[in-house]
């Protein structure tokens, strides 16, 4: 046992050696941009996930036939033009010529056909993307630079959906040779950046693709670091070791970032909307007048200011103002507790009547908002019972089975910014998220707009849907959260996208 003392000393030495590291200051390589992601999607295959953190990277690596930038306008991508037939059931795309994948493989009509056959076939069935593209019957190659999309039924949102996620074009030869599994971790696209290194759970590194059809990106390198803890992301930003903390920057971190002269907060309208849907079958919320009274009892502006640091906007319908179908003329019911009390009395609701509010317990922001709602309801004599659920339980068991209390949280954040994507699933009878209502007028409106090819006509119908929902007071519309980024001032030309789909082609760093 002579060794014990010696070993101890050795350990001590080792410990001091570890504690005296090279204290080199964090130095940036010229032209390297470092961005945080809260989660590693695990696979970079466009059809494997539906995660926003995939899109932050994937939108730089892949191209779709169409493109949508931070201004939300559709523009040509790998297709230079397209035209839709009268009945809306055929779309012909003219493809961009002389485009190459990162591995040198040429992009052509065959690649488009392969991409969509894969998405709509067995491989796509393993992921969450397929049903979004179900309107496509098949993709036919007309010639090397022309493809026809033949549709089972017209889908007015399809062109938008081709700008991202499952619509991203993948290289046929590469995938056939290397296999799907290899492609997951060694993705190849036609995008402005190529993946040069991927360390699962640590980082993914991109370098510019010089032959990109849109021109070579200006950065030398982009490193996406996976940092799960939001406060750690902020610490890295403050320490100058990352340049962009991607949405959502925690609301509590906004003053910290703002007070640092080297940093700034970029906050823009995002896709996420929150509402409290009413149970129109049981309880006091069966009565439309009561529902309207409850809406008028709650001061949404105050909730946004006090609980959400001003990083949200009040909504009148279940969509962001960037959404197709948004109606600027539709105003929410005003905050008017006196009128609310009067309406409640009129409807015969006695003071002390109770409502139960169901919500996702893990959603800290919403918890505070729900508590505030309960406070406002208390002020008009309604008692609230707050009931937090595990996300999975409320989404899979409570809502679809119609087992909610009088009010329940509905939160949505679709990237397509088209009211159809939410409204249909929310208000059409028989849909998973609509356990209580069956309103023929809404069903008809929702169905009719799906086959319309005339954009402005369709927009009118979507606006009408929003109006009917508000008239019948099916929900208490709450707010639309901003997308909030923390950005170092050394980053230039960065435009925060509302849909989390970063495209870093024009970004430079000092």
């Amino acid at each position, binding site marked *: *046992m002579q060794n*014990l*003392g010696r070993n*101890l000393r050795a*350990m*001590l030495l*080792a*410990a001091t050696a*570890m*504690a005296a*590291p*090279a*204290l*080199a200051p*964090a130095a940036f390589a010229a032209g390297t941009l470092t961005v945080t992601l809260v*989660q*590693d999607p*695990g*696979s*970079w*295959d466009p059809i494997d*996930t*539906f*995660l926003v953190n995939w*899109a932050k990277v994937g939108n730089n690596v892949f191209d779709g036939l169409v493109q949508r930038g931070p201004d939300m306008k559709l523009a040509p991508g790998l297709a230079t033009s397209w035209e839709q037939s009268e009945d809306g059931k055929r779309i012909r795309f003219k493809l961009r010529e002389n485009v190459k994948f990162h591995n040198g493989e040429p992009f052509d009509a065959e690649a488009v056909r392969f991409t969509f056959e894969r998405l709509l076939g067995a491989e796509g*069935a*393993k*992921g*969450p993307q*397929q*049903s979004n593209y179900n309107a496509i019957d098949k993709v036919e190659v007309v010639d090397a630079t022309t493809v026809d999309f033949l549709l089972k039924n017209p889908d007015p949102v399809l062109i938008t959906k081709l700008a991202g996620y499952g619509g991203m074009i993948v290289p046929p030869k590469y995938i056939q040779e290397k296999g799907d*599994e290899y492609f*997951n971790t060694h993705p190849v696209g036609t995008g402005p950046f190529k993946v040069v290194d991927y360390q*699962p*759970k*640590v980082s993914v590194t991109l370098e510019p693709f010089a032959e990109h059809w849109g021109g070579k990106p200006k950065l030398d390198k982009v490193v996406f*670091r996976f*940092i*799960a*803890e939001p*406060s*750690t992301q902020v*610490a*890295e930003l*403050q*320490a100058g*070791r990352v340049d962009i903390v991607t949405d959502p920057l925690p609301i509590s971190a906004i003053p910290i970032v703002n007070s640092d002269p080297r940093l700034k907060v970029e906050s823009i309208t995002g*896709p996420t909307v929150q509402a409290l849907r009413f149970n129109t079958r049981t309880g006091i919320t069966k009565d439309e007048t009561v529902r309207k009274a409850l809406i008028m009892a709650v001061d949404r502006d105050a909730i946004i200011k006090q609980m959400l640091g001003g990083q949200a906007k009040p909504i009148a319908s279940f969509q962001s103002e960037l959404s197709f179908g948004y109606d600027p003329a539709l105003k929410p019911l005003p905050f008017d507790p006196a009128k609310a009390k009067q309406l409640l009395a009129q409807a015969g609701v006695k003071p002390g009547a109770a409502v139960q509010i169901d919500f996702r317990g893990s959603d800290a922001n919403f918890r505070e908002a729900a508590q505030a709602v309960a406070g406002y309801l208390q002020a008009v004599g309604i008692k609230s019972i707050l009931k937090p659920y*595990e996300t*999975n339980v409320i*989404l*899979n068991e409570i809502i679809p089975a119609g087992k909610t209390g009088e009010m329940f949280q509905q939160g949505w*954040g679709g*990237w*397509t910014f088209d009211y159809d*994507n*939410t409204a249909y*699933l929310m208000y059409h009878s028989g849909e*998973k998220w609509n356990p209580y209502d069956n309103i023929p007028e809404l069903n008809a409106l929702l169905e009719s707009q799906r086959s319309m090819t005339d954009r402005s006509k369709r927009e009118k119908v979507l606006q009408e849907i929003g109006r009917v929902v508000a008239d019948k007071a099916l929900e208490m519309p709450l707010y639309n959260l901003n997308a909030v980024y923390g950005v170092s001032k050394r980053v230039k030309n960065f435009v925060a996208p509302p849909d*989390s789909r970063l495209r870093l082609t024009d970004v430079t760093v000092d």
Partner: protein
Amino acid sequence: MAGFLVKRILQAVFVVLVVTLLVAWAIRLSGDPAIMLTQGAGSFTEQDLQNIRKALGLDQPFTVQYLQFITGVVTGDFGKSFFGGTSVGSLIAHALPLTLLLALTSLALAVAMSIPLGIHAAVNRGKAADTGIRILSLVGLSFPNFWLAIMMVLTFSITLGWLPPSGAEEPANIVMPALTMGVILTATNVRLVRTSMLETLSAQYIMVARSKGLKERVVLYKHALRNCAIPLITYIGLQFGGLIGGIVVIERVFNWPGMGSLAFDAVAARDYPVLQGVITVLALLIVAANLLVDIVYGLVDPRIRTE
């Protein structure tokens, strides 16, 4: 000793089996990975969810899923992550060395700090140094580890700019997580060293050693320390389990890509195979550490060997 070992190993296998069963069962109560895969983009349908569940094998009954997992473990195959299909084995192969490095560095720091401090407190029993060390230890015990971690980041990374706040790319990255764990371990260990040292110092052979004219340092570190090593080794061995538990939080705060971060992400994403793999390996590790303590006992104290 051989019979004793066989018995302990059988017990260990049983413990690991129970742990895997509990984990596999509990994570399935916690939520649906299909929802997690679709999260954030909206507009998925029930059909999508069912497709994913089928592709991931979650439409099978629990017993089938569990048996598949256990057969995999026996053959050394932990399956694939639900997110991207990376093999769980390779994820663990990257994470485990980092966690062990962090755990052992923290332990080494704790030993290096607690033994001299504990002895110093014992020798100066009742004096100012003793009281000081005891108060410090109490303060250290009362810190929640994540709070200490955040304070260190604020001080050393943001205010002073000496150390990187997170990651594991450079040697400097290990300082703060190891120190956080080390300080908290030291706080408990100091008291243990002090108590067992006090007991030993009152023994007759210490008096003999002193009256022989041996140097105080030799008396303390050679004669006394060796005799109170047994409870210390037991305690440190047992601490290893707790240490791994604490590391989950510390790894997350410092974004240290070890087993803790892996487990944390897996829980958040409902990535069943990854969580099952990580917990199984950690359980094996902790059980092995306890086994090792038993063996080291035998080496340190011949009386145990013959029992």
